[in-house]
């Protein structure tokens, strides 16, 4: 029997309609269960998993009890703040707990909640978000990953929660991870953030293109909703929350004149309890890392100093 005939005979193997139906349903239920178990095991299979677990480990550590200031936000803040240097400058005890942009403001809120649950002595919360955060989609995933199940049911519809718990994509992601695990980013412990790519603006392997700008950015309703939740949390817990813009490549901002006006006219008005500074932290090509909003690691102290200068009179001791 040739291989082809063998395959044909296997695929033509007849099943009774009853077993066809029952096996189909049983296989689906089995796969949903596998997806559910993989979700609960929470393996680190993506860059977002890695950074989340890295920052949560910091919160769980004993040392965290001494902290009174935390930095939250996305990678623009993660790459811009050296908390050790900031501690020296400010005489405070701070920790950098920034995630990445895809976690959105909900991600920052989730981290703040976890940090504050662990340490009630936290007084200052510095939120640093990249400039284009305002137009991004509502960060549903952050709620699913960082909020309690009760909070999830209050904030999201049941279908989203259930489909997240039984997401068949989990199986695919785990299978993909086996083949791509070497490509995942690793934590740079010395510089306290995800390892950056080789291609950087500072080494002239990246350039801002002509059409790249922020001029079309408008505050989305969903992001406003996230901000309101952040406001409520800061107010209810009497936290000194300060919101700052993430760093940006000079050439990028030069092409975003409309956006600069928008920041002053619109974004500022969205804040009530949280203190917002519309100052922009602009850096030349040689000081920017692997993304237009990442300061090169070599200049992390410089950007930390820039942020400190702005914050020094606003921090609670």
């Amino acid at each position, binding site marked *: 029997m040739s291989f082809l005939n063998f395959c044909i005979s296997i695929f033509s193997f007849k099943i*009774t309609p009853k077993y*066809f139906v029952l096996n189909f349903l049983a296989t689906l239920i089995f796969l949903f269960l596998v997806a559910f178990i993989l979700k609960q095991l929470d393996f680190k299979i993506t860059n977002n998993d890695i950074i989340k677990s890295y920052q949560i480990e910091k919160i769980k550590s004993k040392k965290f009890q001494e902290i009174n200031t935390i930095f939250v936000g996305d990678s623009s803040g993660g790459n811009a703040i050296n908390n050790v240097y900031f501690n020296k400058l400010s005489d405070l005890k701070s920790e950098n707990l920034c995630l990445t942009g895809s976690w959105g403001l909900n991600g920052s809120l989730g981290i703040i909640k976890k940090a504050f649950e662990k340490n009630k002595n936290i007084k200052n919360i510095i939120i640093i978000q990249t400039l284009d955060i305002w137009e991004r989609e509502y960060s549903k995933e952050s709620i699913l990953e960082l909020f309690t199940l009760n909070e999830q049911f209050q904030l999201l519809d049941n279908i989203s929660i259930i489909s997240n718990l039984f997401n068949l994509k989990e199986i695919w992601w785990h299978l993909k991870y086996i083949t791509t695990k070497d490509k995942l980013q690793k934590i740079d412990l010395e510089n306290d953030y995800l390892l950056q790519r080789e291609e950087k603006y500072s080494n002239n392997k990246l350039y801002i293109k002509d059409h790249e700008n922020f001029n079309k950015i408008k505050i989305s309703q969903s992001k406003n909703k996230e901000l309101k939740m952040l406001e409520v949390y800061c107010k209810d817990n009497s936290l000194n929350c300060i919101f700052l813009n993430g760093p940006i490549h000079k050439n990028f901002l030069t092409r975003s004149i409309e956006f600069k006006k928008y920041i002053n006219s619109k974004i500022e008005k969205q804040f009530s309890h949280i203190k917002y500074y519309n100052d922009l932290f602009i850096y030349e090509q040689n000081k920017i890392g692997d993304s237009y909003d990442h300061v090169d690691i070599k200049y992390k102290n410089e950007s930390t100093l820039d942020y400190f200068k702005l914050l020094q009179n606003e921090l609670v001791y």
Partner: protein
Amino acid sequence: MLFNYVVGNSLNNNEGHHRFSKKSMLTFGIVSNIALLGYFKYTDFMIYNFNLLTDANIPTLDLALSLAISFFTFQQISYLVDSYRQETKEYDFLNYSLFVTFFPQLIAGPIVHHKEMMPQFAKIRNKVKNYINISMGLFIFSIGLFKKVVIADTFAVWATAGFDTATTLNLFEAWATSLSYTFQLYFDFSGYTDMAIGLALLFNIKLPINFNSPYKATDIQDFWRRWHITLSRFLKDYVYIPLGGNRKGEFRTYNNLLATFIIGGIWHGAGWTFVFWGFLHGMALVIHRAWSKLGFKLWTWLAWIITFNFINIAWVFFRAKEWDAAVKVIDGMFNFNNIVLSEKLAIKLSILLQYGVSFDNISVIVNVGKALPWIVISFVIVLYFKNSIEIQNKFKANLFYFIGILLLTITALGKLNEFSEFLYFNF
């Protein structure tokens, strides 16, 4: 539902004396149904046009459209007309209610006829579990789910970007937008129909075919024999033929065709773009009829190109939320002064600069690079593959089909997290 059941039964009842003539009762029944549909679906449209014409400022009602109202209105009108024609039997109210509200086809069709449904509901054997039908139902359902979730929803991203967000489109973006919608609509609607057919089969109910490879059509009449077959059937039996059909001379036939398709256009949505879409199809049918009468014929491939492109262009008006959006896409499709090629080709094809071709990022609004392979594959599927009904007829409960439906279902369920509304919910 109760109203239509009572009116239908009265129309069907030959015995006894009626206070009103049957024709008056039928007219009252039809007008009541259309009035209800009109109130929910067309009031705002009429207010808007009235305001426009008279400079008045009457506020719109912003009524929530009752789900599936267009579909169950048509089904019930056909029931009334057939009762008047004495073509209905004395169905019981429970079966009648099931006929109108049968959930698999309720929200987006197929538009079923009482003659094909009522006997199935009444059949005792259909109330017994049948694994052959269940397995076939799961099979056709999985194909439909895959078509909707994986293919149609992928095209939806590019269609939405082109129609709703762009202010101008270059030539390739405009074609990618229109073709994306053409395929989105087909895979969405036929996928939904497959799911309805599959779900109904789980209950031993066979729904009528609604699609038969419509994009293989080589003329517009052929297209309407393949696309939304149950709507075409309704329009033919309850609009075109009562208007006189082709029995009252050639000129009247053309008028009837045009009127039928304009009504079909309005049925799809309350907007001038829908009316224009119906008008375009009506005109195309008139031209096709006149052309055929004169005995002209085209090569099959040329006939297909003309038919497909006409359908593709007409869908632009069907999809556009406003007239300007339709004009923007059509303008982009035929504006040969706005050809943008990938900047990667700038050096190799620099000679084209003198002909007005520019080199830039070709996918600013619509990701042409990503859409292109999907469009090519979709062409292959709709033109060279068997449609789901043809595949269903070959279905056997064996390992091949088992693995097939498992893969289709898993892929679709995996992608469901990004689901969007079914397009035909609003019609």
